[in-house]
């Protein structure tokens, strides 16, 4: 039983990294949102599995929050935002997909090496899970760096947060309050960003963040 439990946890964590790569690869708005929903679903599966394995029923709560909030509500809401802003046909990346994916691979390798070396004492699969969580975070950051569109940056940000939750649930004994507060902080962040999106759009007629730079006079 024990090896299988670890195997499944490991597989789900690895799946999350894979979905992060899909986020990097996908450059269309709606596809991006669908994959983000998938990201959240995989995360909630992973949390639920941890809850089951660690025999910690309270962990089901963040799992459910992740599923409902990030798997359904936020993607649907972002979907609407995209439709309202009329940017659903926009495709944007800074640099090609190939180099971005290569950079992503480099980041995963880096996080593996760093995590495996730093936590030499811990149990092997937990170490690898931590490494996967770090990879998800780094990939999210990479996505925020390589995208221009504000909506994709929001998605990148939310995927970083997913990585944090993955790391948190992997560690036993994380208090429930912390997790729930993290989950709610995301809603707040989402609302704030959502409002900002519309404000930006009202001002500049675009959500391309380059426009902001131009406004500040950084780029001519």
């Amino acid at each position, binding site marked *: 039983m024990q090896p299988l439990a670890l195997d*499944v946890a490991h597989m789900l964590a690895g799946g999350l990294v894979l979905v992060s790569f899909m986020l990097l690869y996908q450059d269309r708005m709606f596809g991006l949102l669908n994959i983000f929903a998938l990201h959240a679903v995989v995360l909630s599966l992973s949390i639920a599995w941890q809850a089951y394995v660690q025999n910690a029923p309270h962990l089901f709560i963040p799992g459910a929050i992740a599923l409902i909030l990030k798997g359904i509500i936020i993607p649907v809401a972002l979907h609407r935002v995209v439709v309202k802003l009329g940017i659903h046909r926009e495709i944007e990346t800074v640099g090609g997909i190939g180099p971005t994916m290569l950079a992503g691979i480099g980041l995963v390798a880096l996080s*593996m090496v760093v995590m495996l070396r730093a936590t030499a004492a811990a149990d092997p699969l937990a170490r690898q899970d931590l490494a996967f969580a770090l990879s998800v975070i780094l990939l999210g950051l990479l996505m925020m760096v390589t995208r221009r569109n504000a909506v994709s940056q929001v998605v990148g940000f939310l995927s970083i947060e997913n990585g944090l939750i993955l790391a948190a649930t992997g560690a036993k004994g994380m208090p429930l309050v912390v997790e729930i507060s993290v989950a709610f902080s995301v809603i707040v962040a989402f609302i704030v960003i959502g409002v900002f999106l519309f404000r930006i759009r009202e001002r500049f007629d675009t959500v391309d963040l380059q426009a902001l730079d131009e406004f500040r006079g950084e780029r001519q």
Partner: protein
Amino acid sequence: MAVILDLAVQGAQMALVLLLAPLLVGFIRRIKARMLRRRGPPLLQPYRDLLRLCRKEVVLAENASWLFRTAPYMIFAATWVAAALVPTFATGLHFSWTADLIAITALLGSARLFLALVGMDVGTSFGGIGSSREMMFSSIAEPAMIMIVFTIALVAGSTQLSTIADTMLTADVGLRVSLGLALVGLIIVAIAENARIPVDNPATHLELTMVHEAMVLEYSGRHLAVIELAAALKLLLYISIIACVFVPWGLATNGSGIPAHALGLATYICKLAVGGFLLALFETSIAKMRVFRVPEFLGAGLMLGLLGTLLLFVSRSF
């Protein structure tokens, strides 16, 4: 006695792949037609097509060279040899040690090289476009395949398909992230190598987007029949590799009796049917890509293979 049985199994395998390949193509066409609410051609239509092509005369371009006339047989032979070495219903085929997974990939590479060459032989614009794009796809698909082979070989400790299948059957492999990555990557490569949607459309003609069909445009009669059969074999081969590595259950082991082999055969046909069904489902639910999006698609396969290998390399340390 054991040698005779082994040889019989090997011979049966060679005949089986040849017999099943057109059926698989017919099955996929049928399922696709059904999903589109069409009635579709009968299951046996590909056999009839092949027979019809064989009976027709060959119309050869005036300036076609000796290479053009010999290449179809070489393409067929390389593909057939490769297909004969993949365990389909039984592992430990008598000659399976002749070539490992890397060599099978390279054999398919030989077939592709000849195909790309004959595309340019007559000197038409369509042939050139097909060859050029095929080589561009293969220049990414082949490294991707090699990296996937690396991933699988590092997990199984072998590049021999029979040994890999045996290792995968034991419980201690478990669920591995790298294997998951390799599976996705292998599916991407298989779709590209077999000229399926979204990379290429097997049903297209007279379009600037065709790749495989453009290379064989000048072929007719028996030459075309041989090439079509080789293409069907290649599709069967890839589904068999995926089945053998990722769902090896039901494979008869070396030296087991007739019932085990019969069971292996039954499960193999089921696996082919499932594979064909999933392919048809995938093809009907997705649109063809622009040619210059294909490198990104294939690049994703390469990245997955590389990532899988990297994970295994790094995690070997504990």
